[in-house]
Every structure is written in structure tokens, then in C-alpha cells.
């Protein structure tokens, strides 16, 4: 990739939005490490994204939905009469009080924890296999995100792989697609907190020859067992 390509592709924006993966991401990283202009673009862009996140977290009103009010006569004016409005207002105050004292502080604390820089527990499924040996134990705090690593043996017959985590009854907990290009390297999967509940799971990887979008099909290429539990 040269500088003209990077500008034409809006590569810095794609990179910062997480839209690049595989060979293109590798190419762009190699390019901006050696191109002062693109490096400055990436640095400034990353600073903008991080700072926007911080600002909006502290001052959500900067991006709040615009309030729209329409006052009309008739039935709307009728419900504003004190006999109806006063009890309704008391109920609303009680709800708002509960939210202000309990719900919102809890959500703010969760949001602050979710968005703050932190370490990410990671668990490797590289050694787990389908032969029923002792499965990997994924143990995290409740609602804590974590990463799973696995190797997919690339097969030129497949253009994309699906990685699906199934519970003990075979129900899918989540599924994602991995392009064949990404599968050439160790695949790391970010799992948001609270996506799984404690219990045994299996990661089933299927190769798909059809274009992306094929669902429920594919050829199973590997499965890795693991159990999920909460740290006490």
C-alpha cells in the first residue's frame, strides 16, 4: 500500500473504526509506520476517538437526543389539569428518585468499568480439541469481557469460517464469521461480559465455501471444549 492508496481508501478512518482486518490491516500498519503523514493521521484520529469517548462518558448531554415538544389543546390540555397531573407527577417523582439513587449510579459505574482501560483475561483454545480431554476453564468475574484464542487450519476450499459457541444443549450462544485471510493467523475473539452463563460449552468452527451470508451450513473443521465459570 502506498500513500495514495491509503488516502483513497480512507485507510486511517477504516482502521480506527475497526473495519480493517487481515492482510489489508497488516499492509496499512506497515505503511503508516513508515509514512509520517499517515502516522500523524492515525495518531490524531486515535486521540480524537479516545477523547470523544471520554468526553461523552462524562457529559452525555453533548450528544443527547434533541427534545421535541408539541403542545396542543384538547385531550393533551385535559391531562395537564391538576387533578390528573398531580398524582401522575408524584408517581413520576418516585420513579425518578429510584432511578437517580439506585439505577443510574449503578449503570454509570458499570459504564465506567466497561469503558475504562483495563486488562483483558485471555484463554487459549489452541490446545483444546475434540477428543474430550480436560477442557479449558474460562473463569472471569461476572460481566467481565475476555478473549479466546484459537488456531484454524486454513483450507483453500473455504472462503470464510464461522465460529459458533454452543451450550450443552447445542443452542448457539454466539456466532461470528472469520474471513479466510484472518484464519491464517491465530484468531482472537473478544467476548463481551455476560454473554455466557456458567456451564460447559464447545466452540465449533465450520468452513464455508459460499460467499458470506450463508447461515447454518458449512463443514465442521474443528471443535474445542471449554467450561465457563465465574471467579468467586
Amino acid at each position, binding site marked *: 500500500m502506498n500513500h495514495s492508496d491509503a488516502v483513497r481508501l480512507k485507510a486511517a478512518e477504516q482502521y*480506527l*473504526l475497526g473495519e480493517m482486518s487481515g492482510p489489508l490491516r497488516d499492509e496499512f500498519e506497515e505503511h503508516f*509506520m*513508515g509514512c509520517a503523514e499517515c502516522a*500523524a493521521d492515525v495518531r490524531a484520529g486515535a*486521540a480524537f476517538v479516545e477523547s470523544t469517548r471520554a468526553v461523552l462518558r462524562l457529559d452525555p448531554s453533548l450528544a443527547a437526543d*434533541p427534545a421535541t415538544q408539541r403542545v396542543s389543546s384538547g385531550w393533551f390540555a385535559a391531562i395537564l389539569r391538576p387533578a390528573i397531573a398531580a398524582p401522575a407527577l408524584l408517581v413520576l417523582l418516585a420513579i425518578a428518585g429510584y432511578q437517580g439513587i439506585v439505577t443510574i449510579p449503578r449503570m454509570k459505574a458499570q459504564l465506567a468499568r466497561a469503558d475504562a*482501560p483495563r*486488562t483483558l483475561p485471555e484463554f487459549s483454545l489452541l490446545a483444546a480439541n475434540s477428543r474430550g480431554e480436560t477442557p479449558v476453564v474460562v473463569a472471569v468475574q461476572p460481566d467481565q469481557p475476555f478473549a479466546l484464542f484459537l488456531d484454524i487450519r486454513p483450507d483453500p476450499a473455504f472462503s470464510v469460517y464461522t465460529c459458533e459457541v454452543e451450550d450443552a444443549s447445542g443452542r448457539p450462544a454466539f456466532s461470528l464469521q472469520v474471513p479466510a485471510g484472518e484464519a491464517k493467523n491465530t484468531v482472537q475473539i473478544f467476548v463481551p461480559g455476560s454473554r455466557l452463563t456458567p456451564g460447559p460449552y464447545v466452540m465449533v468452527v465450520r468452513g464455508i465455501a459460499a460467499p458470506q451470508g450463508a447461515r447454518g451450513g458449512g463443514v465442521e473443521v474443528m471443535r474445542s471444549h471449554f467450561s465457563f465459570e465465574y*471467579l468467586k
Partner: protein
Amino acid sequence: MDLFVFDEAYFLRLRDRDPLTESHFVAYFSELLQIKLRARFIPSHAIDDIKQETFVRVLKAVRSDSGIREPERLGAFVNSVCNNVRMEFYRSSSRTEQTDERTPDPPDQTVDLEGFLVTQQTCAQVRRILRQLPAKDKRLLRALFLEEKDKDEICREFGVDREYFRVLLHRAKQSFREMYQKGSQAAGGKALLFAFLLYMEG
């Protein structure tokens, strides 16, 4: 930060352990490596280790007789070494024991306005930019960067396509970049001046 150009002269100064050049080299690539490694969800403690090891290996190669032969490819070399160190980290992670209950919980991090890339100044700049944006774009940035919603869902909700995100980010970034670079150059100039004064005293 852009007072140095990666040319033959820079390479020779780096090889000869010029302190200013070495400081610039580490500072310049440290941020870029941090961005690259964070994009892959590598834990912070591992990012620091990978960066350290990358700098050690690159500087060793720069100073060896059989090392780098194309000084203008220094950036690509740093990237390549970082990739190698990162793959070694993945392989060694697969061989380590799983976290057990005796491992202490990670510290609960609160909002850190003085953290990586985020400063009071950058936040003030972002506020200025956000105030100038239409309400729709502000909400879109919130959905993208704070709520981290699925992008396809955001497209449906806002009636836009992926290109809209890129154009929005491009324009906001361009507004931000000019202010950001002025601030960075001032800070970088002060840092280099301080390093120079220390060097002269030493």
C-alpha cells in the same frame, strides 16, 4: 514530534546512540505501537512488554554490522519486529497456565483523563468540535464510540451507510488534527529542549 526525518542521517545518529534521536525514536514509535497493539485487544501489561522488546531488538539491529540496510525502511522494520514479538507473545500465552482463583482481581479503573492520548486539552478540543456538529452526527459518534453499537445496526437506525461513518470521522479528525498537532509539537518541542539541556549538563 516531526522535527526528525527517517533518512540516512537519522539512522546514523540512532546507530551512534545520539540521545535526542533515541528519545525521538522511542517517543515516535511508542504511540504508534500502542495504537497498533490496542487494536488487537492485547492487555496493557503485555503491550508494554511487547513495545520494550521491540525497541530492544530494533536498536540492536540498527547497531549491528549485519543489521538494517535500508534506513528509509526503518518504520517497516519496527512494524515487522513488533509483529514477531506479538506472535511470540501469543504462543507463550497458549502455554501458560489458566487464571485461577488465587490471581488477584484487576484493579477497578475509573475514568482516566490523563491516560493514553487523552488529555484535558484534547477533551476541550473535542468539546469544541462536538458543539459544531449537527445533532444527528453527535448521536452517531456516541453510538459508535461510547455505546459501541453494532455498525450495521447504527446504519439502520440512522439511515446511513458505512461510508458516512468514514466521512464523518475524516472531517472531525481533520478539524481535531490541526489543533492536536499544534499542541503535540509544542509539547514535543519542550520535551526535546529539556532532553537537550540534560544532555548538555551531562
